[in-house]
């Protein structure tokens, strides 16, 4: 446990230095000695020590002066002062200047052994704590919330503006744009980051289940409630609750939600005990809540309570410049996890990805790249590896073409795909002859991919 702890003993008396050196060496510590404050600082510059034992009175630099200098260089250092002449004022000064403790010579060996052991353990715990915090941050980092477009830079700015506050945030955007990643980014950049972020998909649960999910239930509260269970609001104590698809919450639950969000108090289903929980609320929706409010399907007061700070996550088609970055990010992730030597995306495939009309947004792109890595056999991803049975020039232009030819092209392609490129059947459905269909296929440069 203390095998690696390094101690520096600073005392002008050789006999004291040697005695303590041998005594701590037998304890298994790595020990070094210094005969003065100046000597100690020289050794401190060259190597790192976990603990310092300083004599208070020394010629030249005193123990208190040395303590200050050590703390200036490394505030986490543990310093124990030893003195033959104890006085309350010097003890107070030493502790105020950051000394871990202050002992009087001669000291009981049991006291010194346990003091040093406790101090080293405390330092080890602190270092371990820092390492774990870094690890948690690394694990929680929403690494696929990436982008260099102006839209994403604005999103990052908004996240960093709102994260340190306790403000309620509403995240809007189409399905698959990364609303949950934005919520996680807000949470991990907030002071609540060491507490949980609890996600509830409101749209996935029936009203009664959602109530039990959010508030928990007591044993026997309803059929099947064999055990007492904590609700999501209780689990989010100290942290954040992320309510996804909040637009789908029933009118009854909207009343409950409003009350809980305002009071931060609730009872479990079937219970009377008032439970307090300190949580931050982040919601997400892909529905136009204003329309739901106008239609009387969403409470106006709850809408204003939730929509304090709004972040709109743009669809992928509005930030096409981020597609190469995202595609390469997913490629690296999947090729590493699947241990496949695919390192690049061909220019043709990348062009296709950039022009494609990503209705499923980033999630769809992620799935497309994953699929391409699964089927890909070469060192780079080809158009044929992508999961679209379409031509690479299907979505030339911005994909939102309104011209007659663009619509015709798209319609023909859809029919061809629906009929597995059976020309006769497709021509019959399109009510044109096969020759005309071939001509249009050539005209629009359509071709069957991955067949």
């Amino acid at each position, binding site marked *: 446990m203390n095998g690696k702890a390094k101690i520096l003993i600073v005392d002008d008396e050789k006999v004291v230095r040697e005695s303590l050196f041998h*005594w701590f060496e037998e304890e*298994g510590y790595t020990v070094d000695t210094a005969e003065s404050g100046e000597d100690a600082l020289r050794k401190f510059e060259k190597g790192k020590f976990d603990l310092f034992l300083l004599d208070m009175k020394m010629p030249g630099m005193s123990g208190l002066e040395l303590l200050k200098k050590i703390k200036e260089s490394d505030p986490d250092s543990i310093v124990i002062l030893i003195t033959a002449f104890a006085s309350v004022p010097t003890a107070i000064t030493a502790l105020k200047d950051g000394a871990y403790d202050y002992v009087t010579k001669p000291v009981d060996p049991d006291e010194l052994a346990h003091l040093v052991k406790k101090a080293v353990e405390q330092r080890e715990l602190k270092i371990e704590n820092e390492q774990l915090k870094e690890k948690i941050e690394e694990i929680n980092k929403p690494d696929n919330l990436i982008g260099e477009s102006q839209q994403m830079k604005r999103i990052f700015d908004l996240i960093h503006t709102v994260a340190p506050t306790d403000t309620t945030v509403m995240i809007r955007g189409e399905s698959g744009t990364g609303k949950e990643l934005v919520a996680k980014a807000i949470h991990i950049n907030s002071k609540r980051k060491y507490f949980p972020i609890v996600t509830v998909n409101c749209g996935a649960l029936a009203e009664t289940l959602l109530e039990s999910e959010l508030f928990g239930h007591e044993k026997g509260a309803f059929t099947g409630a064999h055990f007492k269970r904590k609700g999501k609001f209780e689990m989010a104590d100290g942290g954040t609750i992320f309510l996804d698809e909040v637009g789908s919450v029933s009118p009854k639950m909207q009343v409950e939600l409003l009350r809980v969000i305002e009071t931060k108090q609730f009872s479990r289903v079937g219970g009377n005990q008032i439970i307090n929980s300190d949580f931050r609320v982040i919601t997400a929706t892909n529905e136009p809540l204003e329309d739901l409010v106008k239609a009387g399907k969403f409470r106006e007061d709850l809408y204003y309570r939730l929509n304090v700070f709004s972040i709109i996550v743009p669809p992928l088609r509005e930030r096409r410049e981020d597609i190469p970055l995202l595609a390469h990010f997913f490629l690296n992730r999947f090729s590493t996890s699947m241990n496949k030597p695919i390192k690049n995306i061909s220019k043709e495939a990348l062009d296709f990805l950039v022009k494609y009309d990503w209705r499923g947004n980033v999630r769809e792109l992620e799935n497309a790249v994953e699929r391409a890595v699964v089927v890909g056999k070469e060192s780079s991803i080809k158009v044929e590896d992508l999961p679209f049975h379409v031509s690479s020039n299907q979505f030339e232009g911005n994909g939102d073409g309104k011209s007659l030819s663009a619509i015709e092209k798209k319609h023909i392609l859809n029919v061809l795909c629906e009929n597995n490129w059976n020309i006769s059947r497709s021509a019959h459905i399109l009510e044109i002859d096969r020759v005309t269909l071939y001509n249009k296929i050539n005209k629009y440069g359509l071709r069957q991919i991955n067949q």
Partner: protein
Amino acid sequence: MNIFLVPVKFSNTALLSSVVEELSHKFKGGIKIFDINLDINNSYSDERAQYFSTQIIALAIKKTDDLNGKVLILTEADLYIPVLTFVFGEAQLNGKHSIVSVCRLHEEFYSEITDENLLKERTLKEIFHELGHNFGLKHCADWDCVMHSSTSIEEVDIKGNYYCKKCEREIK
């Protein structure tokens, strides 16, 4: 490997005999009582009414450095090193010399109750402990091992009375 037991200011012959007998069972080499007439008065501190153990070891080295084996001084004098209020003993890590004081191993020191068996048990633990340092052992985390650190009499009583397997392997 010979072990030379050097009594200095030590009058408990019964304890000395018991110690020799027990050590003979544990160590293969010869256990010899070796009187060197060591004068330790200069190691005495009037202020503390104790003897400075490191100085006693230094005196013993001058007289016994040519001996082939480990030299353990056994004394009834109360020992100290600077900074600490007392020590049960002291040893040269990976060296030849060590010292054990029975002064604070007597139960009378704490409760005015005489218990010779307890004294013998504690004395042997401290002898094995200091000899362990001579053999290069540092303190062991295992409470059942005699090399566990013991800075109070309670810890001497709690820890085991011989080396754990790991420490014993290192000695061999």
